[in-house]
């Protein structure tokens, strides 16, 4: 499009003025709601200099929270990924009754308040429940420990991969899979060699989003964490603690780490996609 010789106004493009206005609106909007918050986080993080930033990150409690966050993400993201792939396979490759209902259920966690997402596990595993004390009797801690935090995270990030894959796989249909089967491939080989490569970008994208959200979840985790410093505080919770200690620079330093991680993964994903997508 770029090097078209425009002597008449193209009917399918806006006038340069309109285009300018639209871009201005978009940029202004993004600036107000996305970039400036980003700038705030980063500038606050480095308010006291790079040294202070490193100090905040290398604080043992901060490191513990980073470790915990990574651990929780490392458990919940693969689980949700496997679920997402399985659900998308079942939904996209087969016709069965109640599909729309199933899809709605998969969407549901998006619309559940994080407070409730945490609460449901408190109700399920709290001392007042049947399950909690019973598990405790076996020495299994759910609430206020890694399992509870992981469960809450799984709940909140549940739909990301499936949501990304379902429309993609529905669009792609089953012809490739049928071809592979007719060539003698087993179901597993078909998935591995044919389906997976076809959905890799969608999968990657879903996993990245899922991961970013898993590491950033605050509300739900806050309810089930117990906020034990250095033990059950994830990064977002640690940020809150620092903030409440009037240690703003440190709070934003840890926050900037999350932002940085998110940005790097998102940009990386864009870059990879651009290079390898045909």
């Amino acid at each position, binding site marked *: 499009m770029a090097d078209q010789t425009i002597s008449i106004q193209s009917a399918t493009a806006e006038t340069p003025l309109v285009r300018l206005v639209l871009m201005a609106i978009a940029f202004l909007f993004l600036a107000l709601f996305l970039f400036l918050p980003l700038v705030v986080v980063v500038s606050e993080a480095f308010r006291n200099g790079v040294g202070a930033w490193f100090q905040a990150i290398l604080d043992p409690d901060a490191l513990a929270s980073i470790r915990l966050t990574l651990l929780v993400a490392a458990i919940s993201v693969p689980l949700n990924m496997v679920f997402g792939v399985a659900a998308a396979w079942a939904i996209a490759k087969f016709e069965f009754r109640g599909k729309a209902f199933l899809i709605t259920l998969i969407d549901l966690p998006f619309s559940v308040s994080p407070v409730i997402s945490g609460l449901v596990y408190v109700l399920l595993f709290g*001392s007042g429940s049947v399950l*909690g004390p019973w598990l405790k009797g076996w020495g299994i801690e759910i609430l*206020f420990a890694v399992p509870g935090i992981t469960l809450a995270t799984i709940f909140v990030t549940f739909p990301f991969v499936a949501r990304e894959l379902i429309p993609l796989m529905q669009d792609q249909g089953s012809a490739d899979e049928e071809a592979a089967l007719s060539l003698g491939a087993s179901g597993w080989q078909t998935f591995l060699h044919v389906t997976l490569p076809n959905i890799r970008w969608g999968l990657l994208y879903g996993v990245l989003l899922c991961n970013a959200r898993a590491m950033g979840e605050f509300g739900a985790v806050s309810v089930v964490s117990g906020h*034990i*410093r250095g033990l059950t505080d994830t990064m977002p919770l640690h940020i809150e603690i620092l*903030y*409440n200690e*009037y240690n*703003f620079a440190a709070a934003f330093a840890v926050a900037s780490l999350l932002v940085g991680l998110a940005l790097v993964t998102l940009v990386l994903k864009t870059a990879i996609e651009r290079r390898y997508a045909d």
Partner: protein
Amino acid sequence: ADFTLLNVSYDPTRELYKEYNQLFIDSWNAKTGDKVTIRMSHGGSGKQARSVIDGLEADVVTLALEADINAIAEKTGKISAAWRERLPNNSAPYTSTIVFLVRKGNPKGISDWADLVRDGVEVITPNPKTSGGARWNFLAAWAWAQKAYKGDEPSVRQYVSDLFRHVPILDTGARGATTTFVRRAIGDVLLAWENEAFLALDELGEGAFEIVVPSVSIKAEPPVALVDGNVEHKGTTEIATAYLEGLYSEDGQRLAARHYYRPYQPELADPQDMTRFPDLKLVTVDDFGGWKKAQPTFFADGGIFDQIYKPER
């Protein structure tokens, strides 16, 4: 042996316990040779109590309100019903009170509770529903009004109601309210824990704020208690008890004073620190019939606090 203690506390005690824990670890180690790790959990007082109720394995709770510990005792039975009698001063090793924090030079000329409902005055306090400190704020205001209106309940209600109409933001916790007042520069006066107010002066802007002491305030008694159910199970009864008792020791009391808490035994604290606490007339929660009565009357669902927020329209 190695021990791990979990102290579930409320927001403004972070700095105090950070120091006290180290103190206790060292002294316990010196005394018994045991290694102790002390874990802290901070948050709004009510939320912390709820976590313990839901199974957070706290060895000790050091909360903002007696009511919160009562709730744990009632709902779980993990704390003995007679917990208040176990330690001196109703299990409150330190007390505090509610003061006003105003901006430098006190531009609105606020000197007492009556000034808070003047036109154009904005008051910052957290939400009594979610913040322990805020309940003390509420009771202090109520106490002053009772005195001012000679116990005329409708006038008292009217005053408190007016007061909250001057509150533009109800943060969920004391720390949030402080941040709003200090960092966001919203409001003319912050109703704060005395220790929070001093901390704000120290940490957030030397010279930017002033403390105003009202004519009447309340003696806030943040209590501490052993969670028997948990310590028995974990075998930490002895050390947890020692941990709480240590708060009453000379070291403990001095630390409390240094962190702007009024020690139970002022004579044990550094006199230098004690000079910072202004004299003021304090009522206590017992004047409201104790927390067992005050909590449901004022703060339960449908209580007085909810009533004053009932929309008039």
